[in-house]
């Protein structure tokens, strides 16, 4: 019943558009996970695209009331390590990888993001309302198609030309002509096997090159005028790359470091300390083995909790309990989706559920897919949380959002209720009666 009402509301919304974000909406009666705590029979009030209040009081008079009794209300899921908006069909190509010979750190994914991508509504049906879109590199989880059964058939990988894959952007998944929230929120660099490969084959080369690069960036930053006059010694990076790396060298932009092996993690922590840069660990499959050191360095981790096999020799210690161990040590974690979180970004919540079944507390798992990623990327309190002042990304679920049997029933992005449709549901409806009617399915809409 409620679902039907919501669906009808969604249909109205599709016609009326974002104007309805101006009215006051109150979601009442649900179990509310704010991203940091739980409120039973809570009330979430939204206006002008933002959360006005979260509590146990009634709906304000005149508000549009959405009854969420028996439902669960959460912040929208924030997909990290994602390719959403930057890729339509993985094997056809994407705007996430840079193989230019003259560009490395300066590569900026934000220019290639497509608000009309068919992947966005599908992810939204899975409760995803924001994404941190990262450039791909040879070591990233989006760098392969996961249908590995043609491996050995001569398919080559691609190679980035420099130590840096480029800069990440934050998007929202609301309908409209603009999805970019903020470009250049972080720099991405592969370490471990992939980083060693980029640097010439060995870790010793990569760390040395990295330190030399930081030295050059600092030299450039101090002597820009001399550089422009041609009075500075030759630098190995292009001007664009040098410019892009200044915020990293100054500790203003975090560096997402893809790394698996415990020994590599320790080296990266040491490097960050020596260079005085901020790092976010991505992957960290052996992180549990050095969880205390990661926690002591106050370095956050983007983790896929279902990675438990030694896909290569640098993650032989991969375990299902990794997320739980990192959290227990005091590390701020964000939980990733699968396969580069594009088409399978909607599985982020199942991954969080599997972390719970291997020891992560439920509220920590919810935080790891909502408030923590916002916090890690500098948006604490701005989204990913149900708190006054935050942008109103809200999902109403039929039950526990970490359960596959649960469905998202309503999704609000920046206060605007989104249509619960996507290309995959159009296909479903076209063929649900078997597709053998008198008229071919093509006559359906």
């Amino acid at each position, binding site marked *: 019943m409620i679902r039907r009402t919501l669906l009808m509301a969604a249909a109205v919304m599709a016609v009326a558009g974002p104007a309805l974000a101006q009215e006051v909406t109150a979601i009442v009666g649900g179990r509310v996970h704010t991203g940091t705590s739980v409120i039973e029979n809570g009330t979430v009030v939204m206006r002008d695209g933002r959360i006005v209040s979260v509590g146990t009081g009634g709906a304000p008079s005149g508000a549009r009331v959405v009854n969420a009794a028996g439902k669960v209300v959460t912040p929208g899921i924030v997909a990290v390590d994602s390719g959403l908006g930057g890729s339509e069909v993985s094997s056809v190509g994407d705007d996430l990888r840079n193989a230019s010979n003259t560009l490395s750190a300066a590569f900026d994914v934000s220019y290639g993001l497509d608000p009309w991508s068919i992947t966005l509504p599908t992810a939204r049906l899975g409760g995803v309302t924001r994404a941190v879109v990262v450039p791909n590199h040879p070591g990233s989880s989006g760098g392969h198609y996961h249908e590995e059964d043609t491996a050995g058939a001569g398919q080559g990988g691609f190679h980035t030309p420099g130590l840096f894959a480029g800069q990440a952007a934050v998007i929202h998944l609301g309908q409209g002509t603009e999805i970019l929230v903020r470009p250049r929120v972080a720099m991405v660099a592969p370490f471990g096997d992939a980083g060693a490969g980029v640097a010439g084959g060995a870790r010793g080369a990569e760390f040395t090159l990295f330190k030399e690069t930081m030295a050059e960036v600092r030299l450039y930053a101090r002597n820009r005028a001399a550089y422009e006059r041609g009075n500075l010694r030759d630098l190995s990076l292009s001007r664009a790359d040098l410019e892009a790396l200044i915020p990293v060298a100054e500790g203003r932009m975090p560096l997402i470091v893809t790394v698996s092996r415990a020994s590599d993690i320790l080296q990266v922590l040491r490097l960050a300390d020596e260079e005085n840069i901020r790092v976010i660990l991505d992957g960290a499959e052996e992180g549990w083995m050095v969880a205390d050191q990661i926690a002591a360095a106050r370095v956050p981790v983007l983790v896929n909790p279902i990675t438990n096999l030694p896909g290569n020799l640098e993650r032989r*210690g991969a375990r299902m309990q990794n997320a739980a161990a990192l959290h227990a040590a005091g590390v701020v974690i964000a939980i990733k989706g699968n396969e580069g979180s594009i*088409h399978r970004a909607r599985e982020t919540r199942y991954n969080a559920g599997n972390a719970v079944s291997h020891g992560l507390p439920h509220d920590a798992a919810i935080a790891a897919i909502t408030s923590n990623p916002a916090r890690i990327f500098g948006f604490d309190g701005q989204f990913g949380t149900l708190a006054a002042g935050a942008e109103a990304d809200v999902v109403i679920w039929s039950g526990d959002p970490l359960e596959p049997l649960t469905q998202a029933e309503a999704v609000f992005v920046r206060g605007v209720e989104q249509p619960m449709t996507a290309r995959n549901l159009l296909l479903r409806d076209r063929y649900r009666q*078997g597709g053998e009617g008198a008229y071919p399915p093509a006559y359906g809409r």
Partner: protein
Amino acid sequence: MKSVSLLGVSLAALALCACATTGSSDSGEATEAPRERKAMAEGLDPATVADPYPSTYRGLPRENMAIVGGTVFDGAGRRIENGVVILTDGKIAAVGDASTPVPGGHRVVDARGRFVTPGIIDVHSHLGVYPSPGVTGMSDGNEATQPNTAEVWAEHSVWPQDPGFNTARAGGVTTLHILPGSANLFGGRGVTLRNVPSVTMQGMKFPGAPYTVKMACGENPSRVYGNRNSSPATGMGNMAGYRAAFISARDYKEKWDKWRETGEGTPPTRNLELDTLVGVLDGSILIQNHCYRGDEMALMIDMSREFGYRITTFHHATEAYKVAPLLARENICAAMWTGWWGFKMESLDGIEENVALVDAPEGGCAVVHSDDAELTQRLNQEAAAAVAAGRRAGMTITEEHAISWITSNAARAIGIDDQTGSLEAGKRADVVIWSANPFSVYARADQVYVDGGLAFDRADPNFQPLSDFELGQPGHGQTAAGVRQGAR
């Protein structure tokens, strides 16, 4: 040193043996009785070597048990609250409600508050052939050297020490169907394994399970060979390749049939590639066909009529929902994912409702598969997501029915449904006791039994086997609790 001398002895013995055989047939029967069948040299007559790498599977030590008090999904559609499952001599002896008598000498296992299902069957696995670690030297799943390699057998690439067998077992998987990859039109034979640790592949081989052959439609073969500027480079090239192969197979079969009937002339020369395809023609080898698109499935079905054979299962089948009534009429299973789509053009139209829509018509055979060492550990969750999608579409799908997608339907899809896949009297005692409803993300396999033997116990490290590869590696020896504490 020792192994060298042993090898020397056995080679000599083999050589002697071969001489003796040829000698007798040359000097003896051939001249005296020309109408009588000549005895052929070892390995030359496919009929005499139907099972050259036989199973040595023995099963783990087992005991007679009664699993009582749990909610039973029997895989055959029944849900029994407070159920009783009797395991006797490695077989299911009885399944019923609380009134089911427990025979004497059976240990009673308390499953109150827990769920009991048949062992999970993954019909599309590359464990052992694309093992972990997937590093140089370990990629043995695709003989991508020519488009038809029906002569290769996946079992000859299986590395039994793949740690993925152990993690799959911890996810309730008791039977695995290992396939070659999809680079080729005919990738080779598949093999069905019992998921028990073993030093040899033969020690895992499912006794009596039929052989299968992997075929591949679509983008993979045409891309792999088209990129080499050879055939097939297109969909039509794919079809021409399959048809040419079946023409050769029919011809080869006719020659053998004729020779067996008349004994005249010289026998055909044995051809491993055509032996496999003849197995398809005579129904002993089951086709497992990687095929994403519905229109391509319809072509493959027509081709099976052209040459007179049957397709058992389409794999991946992201568009099976577009031809679901056709598949049901043809009695063909579709093995699918719930959540995978969009990684290439032929998977673009993959929808979460695929499984439920294939399941819907009378006789539909929907299977949830993995193709992935991680997903195989959670086929129950992939099935749950498929249930949810079907329910979202307004379909009524019970969990006791949906469990068939990873148990009894999966068994049917690889031709072992007479042996396993449901908790029914007489079948192999492949049983999982789950900590909670297996359609919940929080459910864990507590105990996993293969043929009545305890193969995995979540509470007892003695029943959490490790492969040789895992010994001494980083993190070795840490319990789950130890890992959670960060090994501090």
